[in-house]
């Protein structure tokens, strides 16, 4: 079962490079932030699988919860910033 978790973790590490293209080459700020949110979503799965690989899931679950909150707050902050710019002009 540990080999299976390692396999899925390596696969997700390769998949993370696909939204990184959107972060680098996105035409606007919104596209880049969308790609960053997608990378954060995949990173949460990756942290959980790493916790199962190292048998330290009691520590890594709390890290995952904190990372989920940080990802949500980051995207909401950028959205409020864009809305403030749109209201000002």
């Amino acid at each position, binding site marked *: 079962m540990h080999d299976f978790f390692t396999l*899925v973790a390596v696969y997700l590490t390769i998949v993370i490079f*696909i939204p990184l293209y*959107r972060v680098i080459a996105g035409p*606007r700020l919104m596209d880049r932030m969308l790609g960053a949110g997608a990378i954060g979503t*995949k990173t949460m*799965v990756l942290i959980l699988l790493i916790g199962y690989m190292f048998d330290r899931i009691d520590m890594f*679950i709390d890290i995952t919860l904190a990372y*989920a909150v940080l990802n949500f707050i980051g995207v909401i902050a950028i959205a*409020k910033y864009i809305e403030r710019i749109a209201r000002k002009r």
Partner: protein
Amino acid sequence: MTIWQIISIFLIFAGAFFITVGSIGLIRLPDFYSRCHATGKADTLGLLLVISGLIIYEGFSLHSAKLLIILAFVGLTSPTATHALARAAFRFGVKPRFKTTLRPREKS
């Protein structure tokens, strides 16, 4: 290998498949709003499937309850964040690529 581990492996494979589909949609779709569609639905579904597989693998314990909290939180907040970003882009003035009408079409 018990039956629960086989169910867990199946769920994690399905989640990895949906995460891949969401990522490919994020770079292949032509428009900002359609990219929101890709990453707000398919990516969230993949994450929920993977965490469900981990819950079934873990069994009935404290870690399983914490994973359930993560599942509920992500299932609520990930589409909310995508929706907030799409609304901000709409108010900012990002145009859809194809011509869409917000009102229903008049009957002639």
